[in-house]
């Protein structure tokens, strides 16, 4: 009976594959890539989270010891990293979103040379992170950096920027504006999808430009706002950029830039504590998943096209 049933399934599967094998072939590289580079490491990191593994000797099963250490003896330190990451996320996401939205509104006009400004603002996004890290390091170099020369030209005192614990996080947040062009391009794409007749009707009804922004542009691009918000949360919570531009192993002065992703990296590849790092990575995954779920739960304000 069982073999008859499984024979039926195999036959049915073969039939489905036969009828659409070209499609299967097309998606095969994607499926293989997902299994090799996502599914296997995903499962492996979950197993390693319950092991003591230094990447040199065979791993030893230790149960929930890694999680226990994170929530007891290491809690203060780990929370410190989460706190820095949350501060970064809560400041950089809204400010970056607002500024890129504002820029997109400015650049969504039909005036000569607008393309040049769009390219100019988008340009930083195509510069490799290593190259931009070197530039930022130079800009914020204490004493001789360009930024200090600028602030001193205005009669303000020079700052240590990335070299001081009190200013390092704000400097990193300021640097996140470098990627405004990426968000701006998405907003512009969203604006292009808003039917022009809505604006015409609003104009006929006497709505001002500001009113049109609040009543048409923002609601009609809310799906893109939501998409950028989700992406911003995921990206900010995985912030790793400080690793490229600060000393102290990417932790910054007095661990002021010790983002949770930097901590995971340090634990895994500097302290060779891969099991512990895997446990931390799963906690981060859980936090990001919760934040995303919360955002989805409160996303009734988002307007998708099919609702029309």
């Amino acid at each position: 009976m069982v073999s008859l049933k499984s024979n039926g399934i195999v036959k049915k599967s073969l039939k489905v594959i036969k009828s659409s094998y070209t499609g299967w072939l097309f998606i095969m590289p994607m499926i293989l890539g997902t299994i090799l580079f996502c599914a296997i490491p995903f499962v492996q990191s979950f197993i390693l989270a319950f092991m003591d593994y230094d990447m040199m000797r065979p791993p030893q099963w230790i149960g929930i010891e890694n999680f226990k250490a994170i929530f007891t003896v290491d809690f203060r330190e780990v929370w410190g990293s989460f706190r820095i990451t949350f501060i970064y996320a809560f400041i950089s996401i809204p400010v970056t979103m607002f500024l890129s939205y504002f820029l997109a509104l400015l650049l969504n006009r039909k005036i000569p040379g607008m393309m040049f400004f769009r390219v100019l603002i988008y340009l930083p996004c195509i510069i490799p992170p290593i190259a931009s890290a070197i530039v930022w390091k130079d800009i914020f170099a204490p004493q001789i950096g360009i930024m200090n020369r600028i602030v001193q030209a205005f009669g303000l005192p020079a700052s240590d920027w990335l070299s001081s614990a009190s200013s390092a996080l704000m400097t990193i947040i300021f640097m996140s504006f470098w990627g405004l062009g990426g968000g701006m391009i998405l907003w512009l794409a969203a604006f292009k999808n808003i039917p022009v007749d809505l604006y015409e009707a609003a104009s006929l009804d006497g709505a001002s430009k500001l009113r049109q922004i609040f009543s048409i542009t923002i609601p009609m691009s809310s799906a893109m706002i939501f998409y950028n918000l989700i992406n911003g949360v995921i990206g900010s919570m995985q912030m790793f950029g400080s690793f490229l531009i600060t000393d102290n192993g990417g932790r910054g002065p007095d661990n002021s830039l010790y983002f949770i992703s930097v901590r995971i990296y340090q634990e895994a590849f500097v302290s060779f504590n891969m099991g512990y790092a895997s446990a931390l990575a799963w906690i981060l995954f859980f936090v990001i998943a919760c934040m995303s779920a919360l955002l989805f739960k409160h996303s009734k304000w988002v307007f998708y096209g099919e609702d029309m």
Partner: protein
Amino acid sequence: MNKIVKMALCGALSFSFAFAAAGCFKSYENPGANIAVDANISKDYAGEITVATGAGYIADMRSVIEEFNKEYPNIKVNTQAQPDLSESILRWHNADLSKPGSCPDIFLNEGQMWVSLREGEILKDLTPYVNASFENGTLDKEDIVPEIWRLGKDGYKEDGNQYFIPTNYDQFVAIINTTILTQLGIPLPDKDWTWTECVEILRRVKDGYNDLVSNSLPWSQTGIPATMSLQSDAMMYAMYKSFGVEFFDENNQPIFDNANTRKAMEFMKSLVTAGYCNPNLELPIASGQVAIQFQSRPAIVDMQEESPQAEFPETGYFTVNDIDIWPMPVMDVEGSSGQTYVGGGTIGYAMYSRTDEPNAAWAFLRFLISEKAYEVYGSGKNIPILKSMQEDENALWRKLPREGMYQEAFISYPERFTPASFHMGMPSKIRSEIYNIMIQMNLDGIKGTKGIDETIADAVKKVNYQLSRV
């Protein structure tokens, strides 16, 4: 259709789980475990080995291999270069566990990661090879500088076995821009100068800078007389030791909360607050903008004949003729221990524990510290670890970056040689954290971020927390 997709998904997940679990729980054999030690293989021995080195060393390594093949023509030596060897070694090792032969037989040990690699049983114990080579005369024990040789030994483990072969000798020196001192009318110090004399020179340079700002000379623009690298482990640890400070006892307990640490910190802080150096600013001597740089050999060996960026209006471009080398000053500051310690270190090469060609690999390692190898390796950039080559007045290393410099400064007073090893005895899981805590403590102390007492207490607290984790 839905059922089939679900089954495919389920199958893929099960496969991933099985594959991942198999990778986590597998045990492995060592293919080279039973190969007998032969520290003097015959010249016609045939084999193939791979040497992994840093990208910056690959050209030199190929020249050494060419020389090596004149002695051992049948040993094929391949090379691999990686910018970050530490991570690569772990990757290679894990690949080798599944497919023996995937990891290079010899690799560069640049940083202090070798202690972790030794603990992880990735490094082969070279002691039998070293002892056999000393006995059969292929290595001359008396000719090797002991201060460097011991860095390849595991002094942090009771057995003290040899785990890597150091290939160069390097220690901090004072590189002085003699043109700046001469133009400011400051006499050049004696070779056995003291920190008190050094501070006086820095004061005069600082005052001279202030007088000369109107001249707009490039070297007066920063107003900082020296680059001291006080934030570097090698410099700061030697300074603390000179004040009689040890960071940890033999049981890894912190013992630095004392008056000597405060005195050392006060001294370094006084250099910063007086404006003689800036711990945030690593201005190299080659910029032509600092009078003194305390650094090790890499700071000068690649110096170009001329540096168009650093132009002296009165004397033309900054050149290597503007600098000379002095030994580090003798510690004579009030409150110091009266003994001088100077930061130093080495790089070297180790053998992979699972190599199936240990004897051929040893022949190559031994060759790396031979006279023939030094003639080509680094073309004089590296200071040999052989006394005979160090003392040779015509040795290649004495000619870089120019002849006539006081190169003796690099090898003088070997008894002062002090590697930054304060964290090496710590358990591997907290070693890097301990290292960072101590570096941060020093930085906070000398920059005055917090009060010195608070800085030290904070560091003790952090160290104790890390110790509680193991």
